[in-house]
C-alpha cells in the first residue's frame, strides 16, 4: 500500500520531518547525559545538527526545482514545494540557527538551560515549514498551531519570572483567540467550496462572484485572525507585552521567524483563495496598513524599554509589509520577500547585541534604553554592528533596509497608490527619531565604565548578521534573483 506515502511525498516532507525528529529526540537526549556544561553544549550541537540535516534536505529540494515555475505537489495536493516555500524555508532555518547560537549565552545567564527550549525551537520551525508549503486549510491550520503552541511556551520559558509569565498568558490568550477566529473563517471557506484545497476554494469563490453574507464573514474572520498574527493595528496589543516579557532570544525568534511565517500564511491566503475578493479586502488592508504605520511609529517614540521599542518598530514594519500586499503586483510581492529577509537580519542583530551586553551581575533585567549608554566606548564592535542594524531598520541606503523599502514604495507608485507611498515615506522620517535615540545613547552618553565580556557564539552571530545586512545592501544582485524566483506562481 505504498500509494498513501509515495517517494515524492517523502521528498517534499523530509526537511520538516528532520526537524520534528530532532525536536522529539532532543527531549530524550537530555536524560541520557549527566547534568553539567557538557550537556548544554551537546544540546546546542544536536539542535544545530537537526537544522543542518533539514538544510541538506532543503538543498536537495532546491536542486530538484531548478527550472523556473516548477513545483512538487505532495500528499494529494495538500502540500506544495515551490520557490515560494523554499525561499521562506531558508529564512526560517537561518532564523532558527542564529537564535540557537545566541540562546546559549542567554540561557546560561538565566540558569534555565533545558532541552525543551531547543526542542520547541525545532518544532516551531517545522510548523513554519508547513505554513509556507501548505496548500490545504487543514495543513495550514496545523502548521500555524504547531508554531503558535511552541511559541506560547517559549515566551513563558522563564517560569520563575513574573514578566515572562504575564507575557506568555497575554500572548497565549490573544494568539489562540486569533487562531480560533481564523479556524472559523476556514470552516466557512470549506462550507462555501466543499473543499479544503486552496486552489479549489479559489475557483469556488471566483465562480460565486459577488460578496454575500457568508463570504463576507469568512473574509472578515480570516482577515482579523491573520492581522492578529502579523501584529497589525488595531490587533497589535499583544506584541509589545509579549516581546518585552519573553526571553530576549525568544523575542528575536518571535519577531522575525513567526512574523515571516505569518506573512507566508497571509500571502498564501490572500493571493490564493481570497484573490477573487481583492476589490473588497484591498481598501481594508490599506487602511490597516496606514493605521499600523501611525500607531507603531508614534508609540515607539516614547518607549524607554528597548524591547518594547523594538516591538513597536516591528509593528510599523508590519505596516510597510502590508503595503506591499496592497500594491499586490510582482514588485510588491518581491518587495515583501526582500523586506522580510533584510528585516530578519537587522532585527535579530539588534536583539542579539542586547543579549551580548546583558549580565546578571550588573542587575540589568529591564533592558532600558540607558543600558546601551556608552556602548561605543565599552565595545566598539558591538556598537558599530548595532549602528548598522539600526540604519537597516530605518532604511538608510548603504544597508539592506533601503532595498526593501525601495521595492515597497516602487510597487505602490506602479499601482497608482502615490498617496500611500508618500505617507509611508513620511513615517520613515518619524522612525529615524527613535532609532537615533539609541544611537545617541551609544555614542554621546557616558555609560558604566569597563569592557564587556564576549563569547564566541555571540560574536559569530553578530558578525553573520552584520555582514549579511551590509552585503544585502551593497551587492544585492544574487539575493534579488533568488527572491524574484520566490514569487512566480
Amino acid at each position: 500500500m505504498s500509494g498513501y506515502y509515495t517517494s515524492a511525498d517523502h521528498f517534499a516532507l523530509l526537511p520538516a520531518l528532520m526537524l520534528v525528529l530532532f525536536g522529539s529526540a532532543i527531549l530524550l537526549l537530555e536524560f541520557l547525559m549527566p547534568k553539567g556544561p557538557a550537556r548544554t553544549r551537546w544540546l546546542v550541537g544536536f539542535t544545530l545538527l537537526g537544522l543542518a540535516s533539514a538544510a541538506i534536505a532543503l538543498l536537495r529540494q532546491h536542486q530538484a526545482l531548478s527550472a523556473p515555475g516548477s513545483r512538487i505537489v505532495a500528499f494529494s495536493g495538500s502540500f506544495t514545494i515551490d520557490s515560494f516555500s523554499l525561499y521562506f524555508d531558508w529564512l526560517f532555518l537561518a532564523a532558527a540557527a542564529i537564535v540557537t547560537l545566541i540562546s546559549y549565552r542567554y540561557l546560561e545567564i538565566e540558569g534555565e538551560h533545558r532541552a525543551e527550549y531547543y526542542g520547541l525551537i525545532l518544532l516551531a520551525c517545522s510548523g513554519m515549514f508547513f505554513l509556507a508549503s501548505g496548500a490545504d486549510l487543514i495543513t495550514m491550520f496545523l502548521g500555524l498551531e504547531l508554531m503558535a503552541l511552541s511559541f506560547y511556551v517559549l515566551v513563558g520559558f522563564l517560569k520563575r519570572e513574573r514578566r515572562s509569565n504575564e507575557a506568555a498568558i497575554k500572548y497565549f490568550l490573544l494568539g489562540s483567540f486569533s487562531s480560533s477566529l481564523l479556524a472559523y473563517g476556514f470552516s466557512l471557506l470549506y462550507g462555501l467550496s466543499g473543499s479544503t484545497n486552496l486552489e479549489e476554494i479559489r475557483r469556488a469563490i471566483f465562480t460565486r462572484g459577488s460578496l454575500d453574507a457568508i463570504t463576507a464573514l469568512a473574509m472578515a474572520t480570516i482577515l482579523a485572525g491573520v492581522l492578529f498574527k502579523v501584529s497589525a493595528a488595531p490587533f497589535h496589543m499583544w506584541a509589545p507585552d509579549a516581546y518585552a516579557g519573553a526571553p530576549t532570544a525568544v523575542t528575536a525568534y518571535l519577531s522575525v521567524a513567526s512574523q515571516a511565517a505569518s506573512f507566508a500564511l497571509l500571502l498564501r491566503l490572500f493571493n490564493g483563495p481570497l484573490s477573487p475578493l481583492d476589490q473588497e479586502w484591498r481598501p481594508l488592508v490599506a487602511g490597516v496598513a496606514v493605521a499600523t504605520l501611525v500607531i507603531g511609529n508614534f508609540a515607539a517614540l516614547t518607549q524607554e524599554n528597548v524591547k518594547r521599542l523594538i516591538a513597536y518598530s516591528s509593528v510599523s514594519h508590519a505596516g510597510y509589509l502590508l503595503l506591499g500586499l496592497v500594491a499586490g503586483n510582482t514588485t510588491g510581492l518581491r518587495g515583501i520577500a526582500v523586506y522580510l529577509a533584510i528585516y530578519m537580519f537587522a532585527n535579530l542583530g539588534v536583539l542579539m547585541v542586547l543579549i551580548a551586553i546583558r549580565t546578571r551581575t550588573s542587575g540589568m533585567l529591564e533592558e532600558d534604553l540607558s543600558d546601551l549608554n556608552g556602548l561605543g566606548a565599552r565595545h566598539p564592535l558591538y556598537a558599530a554592528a548595532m549602528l548598522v542594524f539600526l540604519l537597516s531598520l530605518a532604511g538608510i541606503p548603504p544597508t539592506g533596509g533601503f532595498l526593501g523599502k525601495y521595492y515597497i514604495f516602487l510597487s505602490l507608485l506602479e499601482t497608482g497608490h502615490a498617496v500611500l507611498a508618500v505617507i509611508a515615506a513620511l513615517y520613515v522620517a518619524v522612525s529615524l527619531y527613535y532609532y537615533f535615540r539609541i544611537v545617541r545613547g551609544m555614542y554621546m552618553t557616558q555609560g558604566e565604565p569597563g569592557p564587556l565580556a564576549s563569547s564566541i557564539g555571540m560574536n559569530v552571530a553578530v558578525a553573520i548578521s552584520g555582514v549579511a545586512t551590509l552585503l544585502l545592501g551593497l551587492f544585492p544582485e544574487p539575493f534579488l534573483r533568488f527572491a524574484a524566483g520566490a514569487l512566480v506562481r
Partner: protein
Amino acid sequence: MPAGYLPFFLFLVLAILFPLATLIVAKLIRPSAPLPVKREAYECGIPAASTSRGRYAVRFYIIAILFVIFDVETVFLFPWAVHYKALGWFGVAEVAVFLAILVVGYLWAYKKGALEWV
C-alpha cells in the same frame, strides 16, 4: 416551527417544569429545621475539613492536563480502527509512528516526574 419536533419541545417543557414543581412541592410540605451542620460540605459523614469552594493542589491540574492530552489523542485511533482492513499494513505502520510520538511525550513526562504524586 418544524412539525417533527413537537415531541421534543413537549419533552423540553416537561423537563423544565418537573424539577421546578418538585422543588416547590417539597418546599411546601417539608418541616423546616435549619441547623448549621446541614450547610456543611459533605465529606463521607466525617466533620468537614474545609469548605467546598477551597483550592485544589496544583498536582490535580497537572494530572488532569496529562489525562486530557493522552485521552484525546485516541480520537485519531478511531478512524483507523473503523477502516482497519482497508488500510492494511500501511495503517498499522502509520499508527505505530503516531504512537511512537506519543511514547516520546509519555517518556518525557515520566522522566520529568510529572506522573509522581508528591
